[in-house]
């Protein structure tokens, strides 16, 4: 039985790697100045000039989309572990909006560089979540309170974002677009920051996978096994907020990705976090990148922001799952 599981695991990852590669090629050709899949493949091998331009235009966007999706999904896994609720999502509990607000403040008011924008966004979300955590703590972390407070923070922050936009005389649409994840052609330092931060966070999450597994047994049993539950949860929250904020700078308040990707990952390879974390990362990256390709193709010459597609599709899926009383406790 173990051998069967190992084979399945390898097969799943191999298949996903192939899908990722295919999707990257599609993504390079998608959007205005469109090229078909085969044109891009031929162009890559023949060193075609048009394809080279397409790569330089679309590759940064592709990378940022993939890694932001991965970061957001893994962040979801960690929040689900902390709250012991499969339906926790970084956007719904206010962390993505906080990250976006932080990013907006750093960009607009401080006109900072890419790394600083990301760092400021992380620090700002940590501060916001520390507040949520503080209020929800009574003799242990109270999960339901985290979820409820987070929803309130979410609502408030979206208005704060719009206020900043209005005060700064932005064309409101530009902020609304980036709030929904416009992924507008990112500069090289933005790409580097996004990739490095996301990979670092996902690695940190993977190192905590064993602890996540023990936490599934409940706080009481976990501490009986010698795990410091409070310390572990704080570590998980730090990594989760870091990842969500890193993603929010690029994909705005894209909701439900952090919930859908882990849900699919659990269905495919089971409840072991050593599988859930890497698998959610890849699936999340895939979903966001597909949504971006779709958004670029569907509305040409206008690009539909990723957040709109992911949130609408993910939201409908979530409603269906919960509405059909998908085993809530499970």
């Amino acid at each position, binding site marked *: *039985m173990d051998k069967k599981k190992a084979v399945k695991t390898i097969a799943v990852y191999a298949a996903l790697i192939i899908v990722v590669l295919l999707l990257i090629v599609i993504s390079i050709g998608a959007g205005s100045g469109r090229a078909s899949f085969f044109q891009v493949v031929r162009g890559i091998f023949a060193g075609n000039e048009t394809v080279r331009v397409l790569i330089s235009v679309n590759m940064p966007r592709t990378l940022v989309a993939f890694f932001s999706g991965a970061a957001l999904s893994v962040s979801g896994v960690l929040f689900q572990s902390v709250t012991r609720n499969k339906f926790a999502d970084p956007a719904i509990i206010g962390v993505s909006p906080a990250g976006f607000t932080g990013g907006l403040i750093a960009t607009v008011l401080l006109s900072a560089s890419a790394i600083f924008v990301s760092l400021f966004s992380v620090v700002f979300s940590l501060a916001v979540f520390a507040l949520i955590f503080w209020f929800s703590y009574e003799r242990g972390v109270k999960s339901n309170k985290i979820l409820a407070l987070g929803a309130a923070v979410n609502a408030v922050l979206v208005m704060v974002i719009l206020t900043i936009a209005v005060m700064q005389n932005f064309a409101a649409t530009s902020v609304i677009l980036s709030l929904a994840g416009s992924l507008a052609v990112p500069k090289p330092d933005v790409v580097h920051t996004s990739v490095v931060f996301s990979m670092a966070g996902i690695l940190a999450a993977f190192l905590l996978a064993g*602890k996540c597994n023990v936490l599934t047994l409940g706080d009481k049993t976990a501490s009986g*096994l*010698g*795990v410091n539950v409070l310390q572990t949860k704080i570590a998980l929250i730090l990594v989760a907020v870091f990842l969500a904020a890193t993603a929010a700078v690029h994909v705005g308040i894209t909701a439900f990705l952090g919930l859908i990707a882990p849900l699919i990952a*659990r269905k495919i390879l089971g*409840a072991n976090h050593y599988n859930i974390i890497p698998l959610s990362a890849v699936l999340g990256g895939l979903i966001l990148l597909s949504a971006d390709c779709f958004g670029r193709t569907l509305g040409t010459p206008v690009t539909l922001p990723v957040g709109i597609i992911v949130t609408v599709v993910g939201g409908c899926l979530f409603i269906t799952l919960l509405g059909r009383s998908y085993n809530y406790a499970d």
Partner: protein
Amino acid sequence: MQIEKAAFGYDKRKLILKDFDYVFRHGKITALVGPNGCGKSTLLGLCTKMYKPTNGAVYLDGKSIAKFKGKDFAKHVASVYQVNEIPSDLSVHGLVAFGRTPHRKSFGFLSESDEAVINYSIEKTRLKNFEARRISDLSGGERQRAYLAMALTQEPKILLLDEPTTFLDIYFQIEIMEIVAGINSEKGVTVIMALHDINQAVKYADDIIVMKNGQIAASGAAKTTLTSELISSVFSINAEVIKTENGDNFYAIYR
């Protein structure tokens, strides 16, 4: 394990446990009985480090348990609770393997000696045929045995049981008690258990502590400590002590 002048309360004015002094006998089974709210679970909570005593201390091998590191403590003391979370998609073997957590680094696979301990626990708790089954598919009695197996896999010196049989039918209650008694006699593990059923406490325990209002109402050998007067004063019910054919006491309880 020794409890010295321990007191505990969420609110300082309202203590759940007062001035509690007791030395648990090494290698013996001690049962805690008493009405709801008498402080049994709180006392066990102090022994597992879930609660910090507001006064006094709990000692293990002469060292205050507050000074033990988490993993080190988990190698000495394991507990089984009345109600447990039921993780999805986890096999019996998977659950029992978690018992090795305090003995292992966070990374790496189970060693052969880990597997040996896991197998021993699974056999002891009569779960060999259920090994690959999912926890969520088990009956209450099987599930409780799986959690007991996990606790055993920690290779503890002290096993704490907080009303482990409350939600089980009579057959499974006795099965759990017999497994616990077996472990105690085979491995010399000290057992401290809170129980509702007085007859089970008397049958399986060496020592008994009768608690009322956060204090010891009586303690001593399980076979002789309980009298019908004691039971009626602690539980506010009547009890008649009946001698069974093999000379044991049986407590018939009525209002």
